[in-house]
């Protein structure tokens, strides 16, 4: 994992309680990565290297796992993570139009983050709320029966909330 893009140093002590619990537990790598992502918001390179040392797992295997599962992110995400459902029911009910609306409104495509660091768009497979399709999830909140107007309204409200300093 040779990368010159960032010399950022993560506070590795935050991860100590997790590693103290799981470092010796066979098969717990995915759990550790999930908890690390909860702490840092994504999986920074130095954190992955630290996990490799503590768990005595080759860094290559850890990166292999981190890039295999869609849940894991190697880059920071925006304050609001938009998970747009692209499941079958949402597809049939025109989730493509919702994606286009988000892209037009925020200027970001799937996997990208707005310059102000507020929104990240991520297309996901089924969220399991098919009867309310098309659906998106922003952080922990699910929004259903979306229309372009409704989508713009939700994004506008969140942006305003962020300005006021509130969270979802």
């Amino acid at each position, binding site marked *: 994992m040779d990368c010159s893009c960032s010399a950022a140093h993560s506070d590795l002590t935050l991860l100590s309680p997790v590693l103290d619990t799981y470092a010796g537990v066979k098969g717990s790598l995915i759990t550790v990565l999930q908890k690390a992502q909860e702490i840092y918001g994504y999986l920074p390179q130095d954190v992955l290297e630290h996990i490799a040392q503590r768990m005595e797992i080759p860094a290559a295997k850890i990166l*292999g796992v981190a890039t295999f599962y869609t849940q894991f992110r190697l880059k920071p995400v925006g304050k609001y993570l938009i998970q747009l459902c692209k499941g079958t029911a949402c597809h049939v009910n025109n989730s493509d139009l919702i994606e286009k609306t988000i892209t037009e409104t925020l200027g970001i495509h799937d996997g990208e983050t707005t310059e102000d660091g507020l929104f990240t768009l991520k297309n996901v*497979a*089924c969220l399991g709320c098919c009867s309310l399709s098309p659906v998106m999830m922003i952080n922990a909140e699910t929004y259903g029966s979306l229309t372009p107007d409704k989508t713009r309204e939700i994004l506008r409200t969140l942006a305003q909330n962020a300005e006021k300093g509130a969270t979802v």
Partner: protein
Amino acid sequence: MTKVVVGAGSCGIAAGAQKVYDALHAALRDVSSAELKITGCNGMCFLEPIVDLYDGAGALTRLVRVSENDAARIAEAVKREDVSALADLVIDPEDALFLEKQTRIALRHCGVIDPEDVEDYERTDGYQAIRKVLSSMTPEEVIEQIKISGLAGRGGAGFPTWFKWNAARESAGDEKYLICNADEGDPGAFMDRAVIEGDPHGLIEGMLIGAYAIGAKEAIVYVRAEYPLAIRRLEKAIRQAEEKGYLGEHIFESDFSCKMRIKAGAGAFVCGEETALIESLEGSRGMPRLKPPFPAQAGYWHKPSNINNVETFANVAWILLHGGEAFAAMGTEGSKGTKVFALTGKIRRGGLVEIPMGKTLRDVIFDIGGGIRDGKTFKAVQMGGPSGGCIPASLLDTVIDYKALGATGAIMGSGGMVVMDEDTCMVGMAKFFLDFTAKESCGKCVHCRLGTKRMLEVLTRIADGNGKDGDIELLEELCASIKDGALCGLGQTAPNPVLTAIRYFRDEFEAHIKDKTCPAKECTALVSYAIDPEKCIGCTKCARGCPVHAIDGAVKQPHTIRADICIKCGKCAENCRFGAVEVR
């Protein structure tokens, strides 16, 4: 005393149930004759948020599409013990038939009990099946009852459950594992989520019986990470079961001990395949293993393991309480019991439907689901997700049975039924699924990894109007080689959506390739936008909203679209309030 119950599954909450609950909580604070509770999804997703009122005698008044603004008058009605003022919220009798026409076994507690209250579960024969099993049955007798019941794996493959249990039981070794596959990755299926959110103790009890039957002391539920509410409720249920002694050492003072834990998946469709799921449980990339050895011989940490789907386990306690024959009395010769379907898409009444095997697709889609919404025509139903296919209108009388559905080229699958109308393009649908499988292919087998990508390229060029003579045959050839060359079940079935689309809708593929038209008018590259001068009143809204200024026209005069500039973004159609913008 009136019980006020808010349906609070994920879909209900997304529709506003949490706000309704909070508003009712505030409004009912001073009403001492009311008890506010939650319940899981009752499956009538099209009517969410739903509030059930049970009066002192247990009689039910079901309120639908409730908003938080209705809380005050609901509280008032509860206080007066007179619901007549809520008539506008009461469910339409025709909609109520949606539930009345079903036979519920796997979903028997969903929408009925409070999933976060173990005592609610106990009041409905909860943990009585495991009590009966531990006090009076040997593991072999349990497996025999499952064999008599004819229960088959509800996750998609439909393999006899008793056979897997028996194989794991007969495997040598003391250390065995029972695993529940709750990695519901099929887009369009959400019954497993509903079961975990609505009846987590039902799942735990079914798993306990399975663990006893195969001789496992540890049970693991592998839940997909996209289901946070399901994980939270199951965690709570496991804690409650431990406190009550249903999990742990010497359950019901027997020699049987079992612990249970949850493992959250990390987002990979392939982990629905049992050997990939095991790899993932062990902390690796979820790539399928070669079989044999089967998990029953060498599974989790190469110990004998048995993996069943959530819905399969949800039937188990019922079967042990009522006997295998009662379950086998429902269904067809080859498919016993009931099956849950997630009915979605362009359907009037969408939600969860549990019916005995042997009913027809028409029964589910038209009789229960109410047919197509907005006055459109039924075109096809997609079953089995990325491993299944689209069944056309001519086969609507197909009986729901593993074999009969398999003969159509689709599969029973986990029970997703996505209904499509005339506006859905079948080339687009095939492309949608290949886009999914190409992205989700784990990459282990060349045929799946590259074959799905090549197929996606061919389908994309057909949808873009660049299809060539021979493309259909090329797709068929690629399908055949993927079926032959992929290791796991998901890879082998990945071509199914394309094969069924070609089999039943070949003319649509040919229209795209030869005539460069999309009959469903969905493929952007093959349609054009025009304004109907009869309907256009010249309000100028479309012209003002057009991002490329392709619309001309004076105020109060019919407008026109310049095709050479138009980028077909559809904004004008979205903006027009008179339906004057036509897609051709």
